[in-house]
């Protein structure tokens, strides 16, 4: 049983980690929590739903090859969500740079409410059921049962994290993001366009969140417009757990939270499943605000 | 005959992630003197103020006020014990009036409680009136009485510095720490501040000043300490410090030369 819970935890944890990366990246460059990030993830899930529902209308070569089709779905959902991220920053954060800290927090909250209700009005308040397309047949191995879908999710989340790691460590833009995180003033002095960097950061975070959204939609099979609220908080918990602003921390934190939740729901009580994240969040913030992998300095007021 | 020490530091050190901003500074401030602390940029002067007032707790060493250890105190406790300070980069409460700004400094002297404030008891009214009177006196002292009902954010740079001094004096401190009080001021304003500092000392308050303006430093200081790279390199009367070889080297090395 333990291995089974562990595997389920890792599946969910992968998507928590992907969303958490968005919080951490934005926090790095802006020193702000992007409250609307969870909604981007929710929109990603809805885009995944819309695109997968369109499968019968797709050209034959896509209908024939499931992996290719999924790649297209992930790609399109991620692109559109990147645009959402871009506009989110432009409308809710950019005009308020340098304003008192309370102001962007409230505008981001407004954006979150707006997007949530926007989706509710346009897609309906009822749960949407994903068409069963792939990998629902469980395979059993040594007492642990899993679906091909689960494996796909785990591997793609790891692949996406590797992609992000490459992006921020090996590309020019990634280096600019790291430089801006360390010292925005110096970054501007050496000729980095901080505005561009911030936009790219929001887009990258949204890209990953969209992929996580599609994965979660496929995994649970049904989605709802309130998905982003709880998902957002859990991913934020994961980011804080690993130390906000810390990229590997967000990855570790995501998996850790997924595993804790799966074990907690499996061994204790599943009614309180959603409370674990809140308790972990409060406990970490109160006792170790820098997170597990963070430095213990500037995080306190 | 020298006055007794009021504020002393013993081997005070502050380390920021491997960088020693302050390396074992021991100094003594005597009662009712005007003491200046000078040194090139980055010498650790402001860090010294921060360490003394608890804004940036020292890594090691002691701070004593009237012989009492105040090292582990928080900034508000230090302020209540009688050490007031101004900041190098100004921190007025922009959206409050000048009078309210000074009244914040009077907070620790207020005696009326919450119930009195809600019920508007005579106790509260008298307390408010008394504190407002004192706040207006202080504004008059720094020459801002006329503008008491204006918002602090509409003040000029020089006026803000004056407001900070009035606000710090509102604590009725025994020691006043001024961080670059005349930086960016014209000679007339500088002259005004020099007179002001002398007046403050006349009221029995010990004044410690960080300043780059040598005219001011040499003009009003009783004694001078010189900091460089977080260490004390000289101490003495103004004319002694001006002639001190180590001081001249520190300034020349740092690209500065003391005026005069």
């Amino acid at each position: 049983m333990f291995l089974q819970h562990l595997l389920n935890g890792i599946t969910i944890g992968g998507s928590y980690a992907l969303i958490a990366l968005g919080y951490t990246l934005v926090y790095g460059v802006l020193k702000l929590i992007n409250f609307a990030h969870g909604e981007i993830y929710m929109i990603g899930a809805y885009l995944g739903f819309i695109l997968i529902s369109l499968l019968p209308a797709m050209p034959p070569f896509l209908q024939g090859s499931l992996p290719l089709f999924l790649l297209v779905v992930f790609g399109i959902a991620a692109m559109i969500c990147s645009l959402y991220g871009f506009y989110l920053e432009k409308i809710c954060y950019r005009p308020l740079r340098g304003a008192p800290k309370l102001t962007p927090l409230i505008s981001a909250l407004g954006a979150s409410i707006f997007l949530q209700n926007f989706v509710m009005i346009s897609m309906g308040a009822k749960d949407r059921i994903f068409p069963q397309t792939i990998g629902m047949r469980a395979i059993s191995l040594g007492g642990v049962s899993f679906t091909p879908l689960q494996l796909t999710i785990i591997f793609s989340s790891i692949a996406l994290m590797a992609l992000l790691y490459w992006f921020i460590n090996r590309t020019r833009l990634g280096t600019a993001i790291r430089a801006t995180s360390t010292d925005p003033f110096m970054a501007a002095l050496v000729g980095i366009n901080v505005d561009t960097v911030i936009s790219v950061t929001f887009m990258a975070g949204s890209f990953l969140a969209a992929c996580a959204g599609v994965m979660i939609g496929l995994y649970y099979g049904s989605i709802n417009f309130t998905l982003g609220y709880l998902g957002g908080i859990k991913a934020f918990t994961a980011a804080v757990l690993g130390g906000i602003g810390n990229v590997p921390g967000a990855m570790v934190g995501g998996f850790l939270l997924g595993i804790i939740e799966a074990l907690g729901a499996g061994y204790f009580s599943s009614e309180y499943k959603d409370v674990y994240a809140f308790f972990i969040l409060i406990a970490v913030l109160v006792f170790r605000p820098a997170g597990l992998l963070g430095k213990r300095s500037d995080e306190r007021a | 005959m020298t006055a007794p020490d009021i504020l002393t530091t013993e081997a005070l050190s502050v380390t920021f992630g491997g960088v020693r901003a302050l390396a074992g500074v021991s100094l003594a401030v005597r009662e009712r003197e005007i003491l200046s602390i000078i040194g090139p940029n980055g010498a650790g002067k402001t860090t010294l103020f921060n360490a003394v007032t608890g804004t940036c707790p020292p890594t090691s060493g002691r701070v004593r006020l009237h012989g009492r250890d105040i090292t582990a105190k928080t900034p508000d406790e230090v302020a209540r014990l009688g050490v007031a300070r101004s900041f190098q980069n100004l921190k007025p409460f922009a959206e409050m009036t000048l009078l309210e700004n000074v009244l914040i400094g009077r907070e620790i002297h207020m005696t009326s409680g919450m119930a009195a404030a809600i019920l508007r008891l005579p106790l509260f009214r008298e307390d408010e009136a008394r504190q407002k009177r004192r706040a207006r006196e202080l504004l008059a002292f720094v020459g801002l009485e006329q503008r008491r009902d204006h918002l602090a954010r509409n003040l000029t740079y020089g006026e803000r510095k004056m407001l900070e001094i009035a606000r710090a004096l509102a604590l009725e401190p025994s020691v006043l720490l001024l961080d670059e009080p005349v930086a960016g001021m014209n000679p007339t304003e500088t002259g005004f501040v020099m007179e002001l500092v002398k007046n403050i000392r006349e009221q029995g308050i010990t004044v410690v000043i960080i300043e780059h303006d040598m005219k001011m430093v040499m003009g009003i200081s009783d004694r001078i300490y010189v900091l460089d790279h977080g260490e004390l390199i000289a101490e003495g009367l103004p004319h002694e410090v001006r002639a001190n070889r180590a001081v001249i080297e520190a300034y020349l090395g740092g690209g500065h030369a003391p005026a005069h």
Partner: protein
Amino acid sequence: MNARNLRHDLFFYLGILLICVPFLKIHTLYVLPVFLGAWGLRRFADFAGENRLMVTLRERTVNSVLAHRRVTVGLILAVALLIPLGASDYLIEVFTSVILYAILATALNITVGLTGVLVLGFIGFYAVGAYTTGILTAKFALCGFWIALPLSGLAAMLCGILLGIPALRLRGDYLAVVTLGFGEIIRIFLTNLNGLTGGPNGILGIKRPSFGLFTLDHPRDFYWFALAVLSLVILIVARLVDSRYGRAWIAIRENEMAAGALGINVFRKHLLSFSLSAFFGGIAGSLFAVKQGFISPDSFTFYESVLILCMVVLGGIGNVAGSVTGALLLIAAPEFLREFSLYRMLVFGAVMIAFMVFRPSGLLGSRVIAQEIKDRADDGP
């Protein structure tokens, strides 16, 4: 018109359009008036901002309102007192809700507006207050309403202190998330602690309070009672704002470091404002319990927290009169625009963004603006 203005305009109308899009399906006819109205409002705002006569008029109004504060407050109170005489029971219930939300918004304004701390789970205090009254007066029938009312406030305050002691040492955005977590935890416990709270079904049969022989059964009587509580809360908050406490809170909001250097114990002042606002939140919750007669966890969702925050933002952060205005607009207006109820939260979200970007001081503005006008009058020839 320069490029920046043009861009602002573009954003503005794009925003309006975005809000209108979902309406297109059902109420195509409404979109045009909304658009024209927005255009007109903006032209009017530009005109009012530049035209000398309008500026003087505005300054005069602000000045005379400030000069005759007692008269203004008296007039508003008189209107509020007279409302139930001419209104239907249904309308009275609506206005009673407005009053409850006004209490909540005033309470939340103490932390958000005065000390500048964003609290996202404020509804948690409301819930604690409501359930304390429900449990004490109905579930176990331990005491009457008049004892339960202060106890509800105190229970919420205790939660505020217990939450505040660890949380208020955190950075602002962390604190916001922790309070959000608090609100959720409260709701989940209310749903699952069946023995105490009745679980998802909540608590039924909470009686309305009585004064000796009088019972406040009639909506009109209860309205007046709630109005009295609101007046008391506003009086207390306004007097605290205009005292050493309010000054210290605002100083902390403006600059925590400088406030500390002036001998203010920042943490204790934060905790004071936090627990005070929790206390009033609990009082409002207690009133809510007796007004409804039954309570369930559904009444205490995150949306409610957002709604209250939106009132504070709309009315003016840090402005007590603004909180009441915000409550009036956000509770009463949707009642009259029933068909738009689906779009309520959508519009609120957009309003929060728009106000932060275009007018962070809210509809009524903060006292800063009034002071600014006074400053200019002083400096003028």
